[in-house]
């Protein structure tokens, strides 16, 4: 059964204008959700997916789904009580 996604963040071209890092964008998006809501992260950059996985593991954020569609990684994170 498909998960109910509250928001999608596409990181693929997130660094073009020298703004936030990919992880900063994910954390900000997660912070804006209610506890228990789900964030879908998409990116064609392996480094982004690697960083999100590493951070989620350290921060205790659950990755509910993870997959690869061609070159695009897709991760679904659940907003914990405290992100």
């Amino acid at each position: 059964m498909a998960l109910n996604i509250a928001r999608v963040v596409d990181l693929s071209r997130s660094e073009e204008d020298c703004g936030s890092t990919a992880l900063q964008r994910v954390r900000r998006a997660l912070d804006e959700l209610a506890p228990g809501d789900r964030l879908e992260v998409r990116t064609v950059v392996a480094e982004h997916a690697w960083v999100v996985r590493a951070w989620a593991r350290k921060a205790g954020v659950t990755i509910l789904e993870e997959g690869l569609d061609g070159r695009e990684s897709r991760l679904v994170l659940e907003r914990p009580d405290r992100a």
Partner: protein
Amino acid sequence: MDYAHPEVLVSTAWVAEHQDDPRVRLLEVDYDPESAYELGHLRNAAAVDWKQDINDHVRRDILSRSQFEALMGRLGVTPGTTLVLYGDMRNWFAAFAYWTFKIYRHEDVRLMNGGRRKWIEEGRETTETVPSFPTTTYTAGEPDLGLRAMLPGVLASIGRAEVALVDVRSPAEFTGEITAPPEYANEAAQRGGHIPGAANIPWAQAVQEDDTFKSADDLAALYGAKGITPDRTVIAYCRIGERSSHTWFVLKYLLGYPVVINYDGSWSEYGNSVGTPIEKP
């Protein structure tokens, strides 16, 4: 055509072979170490925090000579050490550190082609273990200020045929549609646009999809087509000088242009300064 100075660029494979070489110090230069180094880095790589280590926030300036000497000492570097830089955000901040290290005349500085992104893409080993090195006492050379453009010099260059200005920001920044991403309000400018006469060649046009640099032939064609040629003094700028450091590296070391200068004040200084002329379509 080969790169003019191929020795300044090392591949990920070369780095993997030299991670235990005591003559080599790997430095990961991050804009945000919390999003990068602290989650995993190359074995034996030390962290350099761009904001804390490479800048002086009180003066809004690059680190001073004494701060550079202290940084090198803390990292266990001697003047004879081979420094290999790489980092987050597509190697921009590693390139900025490279530029400052050359200002203080460290002899052997190299950039890892493709940066952190390529290393991870290749599935190479990372670690969270932070290495430690015996500290040293480092003495830097006289700063090479010819590598750095300041606002008066930029203003004096406008309209001079022998000087080429290259704006490496995105087209939206060049045209003035945006001056900075919303989350970086402190880097915004009062005005959008660009320095009169500047050519817009976004930094990313110098790299391939895996973030390694394009061939020398492709780079020469890219810059030459927009009038950025070796017979001219070239001044590169962006918003805070880090993307332009990447282009500075390309023009100076990969193409071997004789005079290439980075304007680190960039648009966050120029666009906010009273009385400076701008172009805005």
